[in-house]
């Protein structure tokens, strides 16, 4: 029985001295809305609408936000599963926003994804061995006995027995399936992995195991993560820095301790106040900010600040002018006219 790594210590803070691995600038992804007999475009869903951030080598950037704010879309555009509508994606300094065909296939070796739904992300008709081995076969990395050996190695690396290679996904529990998905993502020895809510579909008791596995692998293999989640406590645990997303835009980005200690954006504060804290003292002191109203449609975002329709601090200025993306403290950016004033 593989021993689970003990609950890892607090994340090691990457100093911004490690080189930048991934940089996105003004990245946008709009999905066209087609209507009518002639399938004419009548508008677009601005799922991601101009986001900027950098991820350093060996760092974990957390991406949090409500359902539908565009987190998955952001992750998928970065991995070029969607074509970006606008903006720049640079991986190791190279612009990858427009690569296609064979060069895109080669790029996929260095960037991988772990999916949200471990049930849906494994082909029910393939054995675990062929699922984990598929990337190796597709890129001609290994075949024959070398392939089998590598698959066994990968299964062991994620804490599964190599005996499982002949079984089918439905024979496993959710946590085990997610491990299979992780093994597949590791097969090509990528540098960067987008984890799209990898634990959201799992039992609470299993979540910590999978998170620990991810952290353990990061340390051993020197991985860089974009960790998407709506579980603030989990993100705090795993991420070095955290970006908060609202309606297609990043509204605040800061080192995780600082963000949790002192959120500057009204939306971040509301999110924090809604999430229970594990520390009883903090929990007692927690003020609750109840947001009213619904999230506006990403097809028709409000003018000015996108949060203005629900912001408890909104002024007429807010819906007139879009707030700048300001660096208020070193490494702590926020998009709000009044952040830091109070």
């Amino acid at each position: 029985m593989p021993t689970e790594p003990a609950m890892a210590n607090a994340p090691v803070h990457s100093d911004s001295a490690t080189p930048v691995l991934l940089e996105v600038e003004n990245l946008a992804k709009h999905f066209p809305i087609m209507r009518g007999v002639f399938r004419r475009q009548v508008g677009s869903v601005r799922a991601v609408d101009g986001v900027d951030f950098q991820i350093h080598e060996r760092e974990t950037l957390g991406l949090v936000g409500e359902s539908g704010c565009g987190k998955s879309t952001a992750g998928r555009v970065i991995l070029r599963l969607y074509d970006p509508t606008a903006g720049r994606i640079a991986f190791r300094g190279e612009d990858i926003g427009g690569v296609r065909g064979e060069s895109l296939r080669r790029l996929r070796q260095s960037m991988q994804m772990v999916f949200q739904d471990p049930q849906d992300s494994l082909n029910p008709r393939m054995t675990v061995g062929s699922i984990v081995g598929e990337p190796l076969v597709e890129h001609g990395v290994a075949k024959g006995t070398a392939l089998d050996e590598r698959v066994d190695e990968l299964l062991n690396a994620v804490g599964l027995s190599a005996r499982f290679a002949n079984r089918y996904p439905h024979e496993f529990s959710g946590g085990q399936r997610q491990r299979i998905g992780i093994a597949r993502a590791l097969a090509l020895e990528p540098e960067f992995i987008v984890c799209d809510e990898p634990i959201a579909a799992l039992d609470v008791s299993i979540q910590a195991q999978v998170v620990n596995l991810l952290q353990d692998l990061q340390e051993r293999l020197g991985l860089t993560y974009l960790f998407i989640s709506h579980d603030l406590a989990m993100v705090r645990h795993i991420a070095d820095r955290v970006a908060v997303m609202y309606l297609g835009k990043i509204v605040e980005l800061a080192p995780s301790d600082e963000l949790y200690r002192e959120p500057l954006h009204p939306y971040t504060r509301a999110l924090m106040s809604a999430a229970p804290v594990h520390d009883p003292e903090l929990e007692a002191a927690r003020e609750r900010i109840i947001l009213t109203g619904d999230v506006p449609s990403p097809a028709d975002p409000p003018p000015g600040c996108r949060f203005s329709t629900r912001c408890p601090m909104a002024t007429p200025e807010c819906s007139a002018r879009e707030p700048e993306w300001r660096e208020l403290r070193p490494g702590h950016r926020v998009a709000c006219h009044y952040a830091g004033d109070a």
Partner: protein
Amino acid sequence: MAEQTYQDAPLHEHRSLWMDVWLAFRNHKGALVGVGVFAFIVLAVLLGPFLHGIDPQYLDIQARNAPVSWSHPLGTDNLGRDMLAQMLAGGRISLAVGFTAMLLSLVLGTGVGVLAGYFKRLDGLLMRSTDLFLALPLLPLLLVIIMLFRDTLRAALGPETGIFLLIVFVIGITSWMQTARIVRGEVLAIKEREFVTAARSIGTRERRIVARHVLPNVMSPIMVSATLGIANAIITESALSFLGLGFPPDFPTWGRLLFDGANFISITPARVIWPGLAISLTVLSVNYIGDGLRDALDPRLRGT
């Protein structure tokens, strides 16, 4: 810990996929009965003429509309031809037409459906063509095709092969549309599943995604179409024969026997019952075999 239950499970030896499929298929009672009935029909049709040596075309004027007897186990028709001999000879052709036409229609339908569902840029064109085929007045079209090509094909390939190919082709190209539509719908749904996105994120080439991830997951509707396709082909062939567009009159098929027999239903009802029974049994047994195969091919239903 629930996570680790499988770690303690007994070691499983290496099993081959087809072994698994066969073991599961064997447990499907309906499918086994289906295989039995179908094998019986096929063997009868292939070997029967050697055991029951009467020429299906021989006119025994003395014994017209004869009832069941030792010399004519299924009786005779109004011209004194032996029914059993006709059934056996007709079965060969009906089964051959049914299977080949079904295969053709299945390949066309699946191909069009998968391409339209998976490749968005082909969707419009392919589905419009499918609608066009559905909207075509088929009967006049068939008439024209057969009129145009019958004699050339007969001259080139001999009367039997020529008309066989023509009929299979005509049935095939006029019956793939339902399959195409159903398969397209399934593919559209499968395409949105995360394992397809995962395959793309790995860098799997499009055609491998189709072959490895999409096609195996649309097996069920394809199997259903296949079993219905055989029935449809056998019946369409009889309709064509009835209109004088199919095989020549001295060439019995189950469909033709059924139609011819219908005129004499009050005198010799057996002439309708036997071919009808043969067609129904074939369709039913193929249906059960298809069911069994579909279940056996699905690892979730295989219960490994």
